[in-house]
């Protein structure tokens, strides 16, 4: 991808982040924003910026980066332009895992692992369903399997909710709608660890994803241990998606939309595609969260709903081209 386009990606992220820090129920003019960022001047803007907006935007950046990279890796490995953690049921499984972990009283550091266990179960279930349909290779069948698994995950969350205390119900609902509203620095630190480790690992195996994207036989002909490589990418991409789910709930379609935009920008090899998807995914989630805050104040639209409103038309356009 040309250097100018990388610059555009980075500038877009910085601009979106500044906008999201400045705009909200309490808007901060640009002049005051600079002061507040440096912690000088009035207390109120400093409070708003540092305790509310910056954690929120930082969490949105991490969630978007994680989902963007997870989607890019899954699309390349499955050779499926419609693959992404939400549509494959990975995120749904992760949400079930997280809700169960929550009812068991797990802490924030271990919650991603519970979500991960749920995500892996969901992936295996989706593959099993697709396999039973006799068409593991058909992108549409695996996708349908993922949607079915996702629906099952939603039902499972409802079942847990039916017997839960009101507080847990609220939490579970929050998980199903997705939000970066209650961001804490501790949460951010944990997710940052997962995103850096998982995203870094995906970038390392990026060349293997390039080879896998040629198809399994061609990849084997280039000396790749195909089955191990596929499992490895799935494992890391699921972990990444699960970590975002345990921090921000179900945020769909980011992993679908973002890699396509970055590919259209000229990133074709997976190392650059993954890095580009991290930046563009971060921008998208920051903007989606901002939209959710400003569209109908003072109430906030759930983040997951905003990304779905953006993602579904995109999905339909892609599906049309595939059929």
């Amino acid at each position, binding site marked *: 991808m040309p250097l100018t386009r990388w610059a555009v990606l980075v500038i877009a992220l910085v601009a979106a982040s500044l906008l999201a820090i400045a705009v909200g129920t309490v808007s901060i003019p640009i002049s005051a924003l600079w002061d507040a960022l440096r912690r000088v001047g009035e207390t109120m803007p400093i409070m708003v910026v540092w305790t509310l907006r910056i954690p929120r935007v930082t969490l949105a950046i991490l969630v978007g980066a994680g989902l963007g990279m997870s989607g890019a890796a899954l699309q390349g490995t499955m050779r499926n332009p419609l693959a992404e953690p939400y549509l494959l049921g990975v995120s749904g499984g992760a949400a079930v895992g997280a809700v169960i972990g929550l009812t068991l009283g797990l802490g924030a550091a271990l919650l991603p692992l519970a979500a991960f266990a749920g995500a892996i179960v969901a992936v295996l279930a989706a593959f099993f369903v697709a396999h039973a349909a006799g068409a593991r290779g058909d992108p549409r069948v695996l996708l349908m399997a993922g949607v079915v698994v996702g629906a099952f995950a939603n039902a499972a969350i409802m079942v847990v909710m039916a017997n839960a205390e009101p507080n847990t119900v609220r939490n579970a609902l929050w998980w199903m709608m997705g939000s970066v509203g209650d961001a804490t620095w501790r949460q951010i630190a944990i997710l940052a660890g997962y995103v850096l480790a998982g995203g870094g690992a995906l970038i390392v195996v990026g060349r293997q994803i390039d080879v896998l994207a040629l198809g399994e036989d*061609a990849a084997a002909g280039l000396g790749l241990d*195909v089955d191990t490589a596929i499992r490895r990418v799935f494992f890391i991409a699921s972990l990444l998606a699960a970590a975002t789910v345990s921090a921000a709930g179900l945020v769909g379609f980011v992993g679908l939309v973002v890699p396509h935009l970055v590919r259209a920008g000229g990133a*074709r090899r997976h190392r650059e595609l993954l890095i580009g998807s991290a930046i563009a995914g971060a921008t998208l989630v920051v903007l989606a969260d901002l939209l959710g805050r400003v569209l109908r104040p003072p109430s906030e639209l759930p983040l997951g709903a905003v990304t779905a409103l953006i993602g579904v038309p995109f999905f339909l356009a892609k599906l049309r081209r595939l059929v």
Partner: protein
Amino acid sequence: MIEFNDVAVRYPRSDVSALGGVTLEARRGLLTAIVGPNGSGKSTLVRALIGRIALERGTIRIDGAPAPTLGGAELARRVAVITQREDLAFPLIVSEYVALGRFPHLGIWHAAEQKDRLAIDLSIDAAGVAALRERRIDALSGGEWQRVRLARALAQGGDALVLDEPTAFLDVAHEMSVFELLHGLARSGKAVLLISHQLNLVARFADQLVLLHRGAVAAAGPPDSVMQAETLERVYEWPLVVSRDPAVGAPTLVPLRRR
């Protein structure tokens, strides 16, 4: 050199062997062609070679070493394989695609060096696709795509080349140019193993023919010895005659109308 020795393969949940003990070799400097009806086990040989299906019996050796002991990357550095079908889900630029041929050398840790770039440039020239370098794969014609795939295989840098029907869907001129290229590569010292349905072209270009029938070798040797009407009629189950082409002097199969 690639040697298949008594190779037997059975697909999971299948009652019959896809290969029932096939022995053949592809030597350096020679164009060896595998022919045979659909389902005779030609592509299974390739899948067995790259380790996509387990052997029930027998061995596959590369330069004397059993293939499984080499490991995937070393095997790919010695033998480049062009499988029958390959469609990219996400299109690359031709030069990026050819560069993937260096994957067995670079793996995930090594950066491309001068020798890698040289290998890519040379193979692009050898396959005659220099003019296509910056084109997208999905904008190539069938003939161009096959040549680009060949360039990627050459970039792997090995001494052996295995191709599964590289001229399927190509018109006469493109087909001939691929055969000329393969013949030239064999003469330059590579071991070329070609799977093809084009019996008449193969009879002109190949040094050795191997005729497969139901997972076994029905005939093998120089084209003249394999291109026998009686043998071919039995294997293809269709009436035919074999004559000598007056223009090129090679044995030529002419299928007859059903009597």
